[in-house]
């Protein structure tokens, strides 16, 4: 068993392998490894003595669980009321198009960016806002958002 699965097993055991702790277990795995892999969930199901389909059911129910690896940089566009009325939607769409995301995928093909929404960052006065890796960018437009990503991409390819 590789290191990651060993740790997943440990997390399950720390929670007494109890079915009632399934969500807590998955949260902890995700906070350590950024996402829940198929192997992680299969092992959790085995440890907890419940079906893999059930674990998958819970994992896919909650928006916050990610079943695919996340990109190096995490973009969160605020979809809160204030940002929404100040047109955060077109910002999200512009980034979505720039990253060429298809279907339900939230991560760009090069693995550099993951695009998410967030309900409110509490910075409504700066609306519309987005964060990249936790850093808040205020009063965005679709153009300025894409410009930011282009800069990061250029920096990454220079390295």
């Amino acid at each position, binding site marked *: 068993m590789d290191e990651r699965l060993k740790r997943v097993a440990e997390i399950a055991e720390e929670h007494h392998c109890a079915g009632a702790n399934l969500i807590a277990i998955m949260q902890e795995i995700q906070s350590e490894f950024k996402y829940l892999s198929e192997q992680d969930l299969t092992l959790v199901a085995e440890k907890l003595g419940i*079906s893999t389909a059930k674990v*998958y059911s819970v994992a896919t129910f909650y928006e916050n669980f990610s079943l695919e690896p996340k990109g190096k940089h995490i973009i969160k566009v605020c979809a809160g009321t204030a940002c929404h009325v100040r047109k955060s939607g077109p910002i999200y769409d512009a980034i979505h198009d720039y990253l060429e995301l298809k279907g339900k995928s939230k991560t760009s093909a090069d693995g550099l960016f993951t695009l998410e929404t967030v309900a409110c960052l509490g910075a409504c006065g700066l609306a519309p806002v987005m964060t990249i890796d936790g850093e808040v960018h205020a009063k965005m437009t679709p153009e300025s958002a894409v410009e930011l990503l282009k800069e990061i991409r250029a920096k990454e390819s220079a390295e």
Partner: protein
Amino acid sequence: MAKGIMYIDGQRVPFDGEKNVLAVIRKAGIDMPTFCYYSELSVFGACRMCVVEDEKGKIDASCSMEPRDGMKIRTNTARLLKHRRMILELMLASHCRDCTTCEKSGECHLQELALRFGVRKVRFADTRPQYELDDSTHAIVRDPNKCILCGDCIRVCEEMQGMGILNFAHRGSDLQVTPAFNKKLSETSCVNCGQCAAACPTGAITVYNEIGRAWRALHNPNTRVVVQIAPAVRVAVGEAFGLEPGTNTLDKLVSTLKIMGADEVYDTTFGADLTVMEEAAEFLDRLKKGGPFPMFTSCCPAWIKYLEKENPKYLKNISSCKSPMQMFGAVLKDLYQKKDAEDGRTTFHIAIMPCTAKKVEAGRPEFRHDDVPDVDLVLTTQEVINMIKESGILFAEIEGESPDLPFGMGTGAAAIFGASGGVAEAVARRVVEDKSKNTLQAIQFSGVRGDDAIRAVSLPVGEHMVHIAVVHGLVNAKKLIADIEAGLEYYDLVEVMTCKTGCVGGAGQPHGLTPVKKQRAAGLYEADRAALIKRSERNPLVQEMLETTLKGRTHELLHVSYTGEKK
């Protein structure tokens, strides 16, 4: 359990122990519609078709209400009818509506209720994405586009079989029923028992249809179509033609199949008698050698699949006997090589089974020789019913005829193979030394027959006291294994049937709940009672074959070793 009197649409209705108001309503003679209520599973309360209104105008689902004394409800108010129609309309809006070409047409619960409630127009556009069809198993076909999200399949798989292959995934308008990680059924631990298809009210999960192949073989003059009919089939076919469940229609089935073009029609009980002989010999041999115990029966392909995928350490405990169907197929194909060479025709062997897992079993590499399967095609009882209907033969009225010889003869012991406990009883009849009528009756009444999920009996065999267990429903088989591992129980021989009530309750049978399945089992025990020969070793044709054609070749033709597969 509560007792009292309820008022349903103004009628006084006494109740006594009914677990919910829905059951009381149905008892009162009102056919309350439901999708997600399956009386043999836990209550889910999702479809809301069974809503009722109380005196205060409060509306709630009757499946999830406990009956109370003095309770007053109405089942058909204007509001309720409007709700039901709206539910149906919304379901239909996101449902494939190509009814005429649907596998489930005529048997579909959604179709039936839409007709009953007069839904003639659907005002909403279907905005759902198209999902991919899963026909990866050749036993069960999943079409998520026809799913109404009632969850019956999920609960059958979890509660009856203990497998939990299917569950809901995602949420809201994206909600789907799917195996984990959206895998194909063939990539999961699914054992192909098909109980999900039996429970599905629509065409979302159906049995893999091979009727076309059957007709092609029957219509090909260069093909010799040889049929075997499993015990459980004969007591269920009649249900589709107005006969009581449990009516033995073997003879009618033989004459019908002949009219449809079958050349020779035989009885799987011949294979079952061979199985009893071989399995009993193997068991006595294990008693002599001291194990491995428990010896598990090997007739049920879903059970074998379960051990292979989930519990391979017990593969060595499975009897090395092929299932009756495969024994029959192996012997037939071996003997008919000569016949084929003589008259230039090809033998095409069809097995009519109550089972979906048998379709997969017949395709296993262990049962092919020179890439020709011993059993070319497995048809379910329901598929044969559909073929009879297509042919226009009036099944209820047709004169019967006996199966052909030599493979058309089986004993009473073989007939009861189709019911839970039957295999164990047949083997017990073979291994006990005292063969008097009293002993046979003692076996019958030892507890081997019955409804309990796990039944245990002890019988003397020589100087040993042999402990036999009978289990049906995979969830119970798992429990039995857990009990053995915990050291709580010890058994020498365990009969396992994946489906509840045994093969009579297989997913290839017409739709029916436990009472119907029990009537079918009673039909098989009746066949045993009426049989001239009740013990497999007394089957003269089996004895003769074991002494002549099969002499020295039983290992090659009648036994198999399952090596397992990776999950």
